[in-house]
């Protein structure tokens, strides 16, 4: 029998339904992998009891004939989703020990669908980062290694780096991610898995620790496109508690999966051809174009003229929103409190001293940096020059896509400008780190559905991902194009176990 932990979500679901194995066996197999992979540091909290409980219920439901869509499937939960009774930290010291008395809408939907939780996955602190190195609980290490004989620890991408590593290392078949400026797609690309950020508003943001409200969107990460479709169906849906939630029915994405792209047109944005980019990336992109043609699609060149300005606009808008969203972490109602004995001038410390000390202690350097930038760009005299200008540019970026979609159905581009880099390689230079999201951020700014699928290995043997961007609400075309690539790329490489 195939090792249970090599099965996909669909295979677990179907095999469990067919009685090939019990859900308890599946949960125990994954929990054992989790317990044996401490070296990867993918989990902040492990919850084998939660997975086991759900598995027992799944087995009982099978006996009773009341199976649910995800019965028997254990998953990983990014530690940005608040989970009732289970520590939720956003990978920060600030929220260390914080145990919510409520469950996020998305995680609740997954439990209601029968899924179980293997644990809370590590991430970049408050989802701010592209390498998972900003976590207070230590960086996640990618299971992948370069084929150069060295054992350099590589970044799993970020911010959903715990999710990407856990899936790539077979610690869980699927996991939740969140994407603000590429945080699902880039880690998926770095670890050879799939991940989709749906249209802004598809998944409720209620109960997800906020980073940048107008950009944050939850989505699934899994080994293949079908699993992404299954997971997304059970995460998406209208939520009256989120004013930006889309009041639309959730399509049956899995049932409508089709890799036949006849009649579809794929747009290739010329502005994404960057000067001096890794030739492996361009080669993968060209191969992807050929695959989609092979699937029956027409290919056209399109122009997204404001692409160059997406990243700078993002690095104004996201920090601005974050500086305000993170103001609630003040040591009053939950989380860390640091009350110094004396204030800076030697007097008794008061409320404002407590704020400053708590926030200095509770936030890591990258979080502080973004709060500082956000505070600055919103401050008196600078608001229009920075924030208003950025939101105008954002309008132009969204308009670029709108115009491009007049002549195509989906857009194909690389997910990231490089393969996974080594831990520590980019930490000294925030700007170099930010540039990692150059291809991911435009779709985030426009709120469009976008996914990454693994397409090739580079010359170092590391995975590379292709990104498909779709029209608003048209996740189906994105998934279908992803499936067409998946079938043709035949990507079945996996990291050799060293942990």
């Amino acid at each position, binding site marked *: 029998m195939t090792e249970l932990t090599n099965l996909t979500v669909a295979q677990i679901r179907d095999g469990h339904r067919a009685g090939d194995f019990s859900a308890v066996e599946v949960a125990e197999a994954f929990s054992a992998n989790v317990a044996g992979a401490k070296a990867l540091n993918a989990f902040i909290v492990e919850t084998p009891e939660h997975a086991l409980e759900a598995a027992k219920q799944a087995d009982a439901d099978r006996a009773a004939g009341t199976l649910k869509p995800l019965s028997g499937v254990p998953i990983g939960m990014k530690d940005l989703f608040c989970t009732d009774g289970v520590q939720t930290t956003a990978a920060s010291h600030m929220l260390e020990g914080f145990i919510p008395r*409520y469950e996020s809408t998305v995680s609740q939907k997954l439990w209601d669908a029968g899924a179980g939780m293997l644990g809370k996955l590590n991430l970049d602190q408050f989802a701010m980062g592209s390498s998972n190195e900003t976590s207070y609980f230590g960086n996640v290490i990618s299971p992948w290694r370069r084929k150069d004989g060295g054992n350099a620890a590589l970044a799993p991408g970020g911010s959903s780096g715990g999710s990407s590593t856990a899936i790539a290392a077979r610690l869980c078949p699927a996991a939740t991610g969140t994407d603000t400026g590429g945080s699902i797609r880039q880690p998926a690309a770095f670890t050879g898995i799939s991940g989709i950020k749906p249209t802004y508003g598809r998944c409720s943001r209620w109960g997800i620790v906020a980073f940048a409200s107008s950009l944050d969107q939850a989505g699934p990460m899994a080994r293949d496109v079908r699993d992404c479709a299954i997971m997304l169906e059970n995460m998406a849906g209208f939520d009256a*508690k989120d004013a930006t939630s889309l009041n639309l029915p959730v399509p049956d994405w899995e049932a409508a999966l089709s890799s036949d792209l006849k009649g579809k047109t794929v747009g290739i944005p010329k502005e994404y051809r960057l000067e001096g980019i890794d030739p492996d990336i361009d080669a993968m992109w060209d191969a992807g174009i050929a695959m989609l043609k092979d699937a029956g699609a027409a290919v056209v060149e399109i122009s997204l003229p404001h692409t160059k*300005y997406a990243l700078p606009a993002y690095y104004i808008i996201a920090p601005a929103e974050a500086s305000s969203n993170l103001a609630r972490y003040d040591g009053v109602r939950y989380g860390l409190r640091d009350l110094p004995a004396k204030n800076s001038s030697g007097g008794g410390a008061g409320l404002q001293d*407590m704020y400053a000390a708590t*926030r200095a202690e509770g936030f890591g350097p990258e979080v502080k940096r973004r709060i*500082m930038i956000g505070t600055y760009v919103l401050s008196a005299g600078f608001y229009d020059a920075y924030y208003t200008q950025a939101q105008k540019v954002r309008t132009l970026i969204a308009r670029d896509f709108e115009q491009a979609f007049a002549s195509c159905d989906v857009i194909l581009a690389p997910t990231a400008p490089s393969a996974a880099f080594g831990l520590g390689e980019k930490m000294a230079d925030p700007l170099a780190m930010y540039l990692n999201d150059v291809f991911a951020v435009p779709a985030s700014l426009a709120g469009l559905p976008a996914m990454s699928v693994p397409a090739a290995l580079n010359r170092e043997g590391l995975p590379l991902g292709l990104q498909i961007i779709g029209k608003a609400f048209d996740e189906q075309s994105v998934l279908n194009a992803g499936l067409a690539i998946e079938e043709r790329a035949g990507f079945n490489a996996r990291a050799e176990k060293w942990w």
Partner: protein
Amino acid sequence: MTIDQATVRKIASLARIAISDAEAAAMEGELNGILGWVEQLGEVDVTGVEPMTAVIPNTLRLRDDVIDADPLTGGNRRDDVLANAPAAMHGFFGVPKVIE
């Protein structure tokens, strides 16, 4: 536009983040690097362009005026609200004495 260390300290104070002199010095360079880079947005001609207000066409829904309509957004859960408080005292959140 470049910012100096005094500005860094002012922003940190607005953001309620205590910083040491060394941190202020380090941040001066980092913030100037980032701000200098984002300033390229100034090149974009935005004449007649409205700032983005809703990324996906959608209108603001309003809810009915019903108390505790959904327990998740309703009251009467003081224990839950205070459960994680660093200093919960007699049903209140305690903070260092404030002088108004």
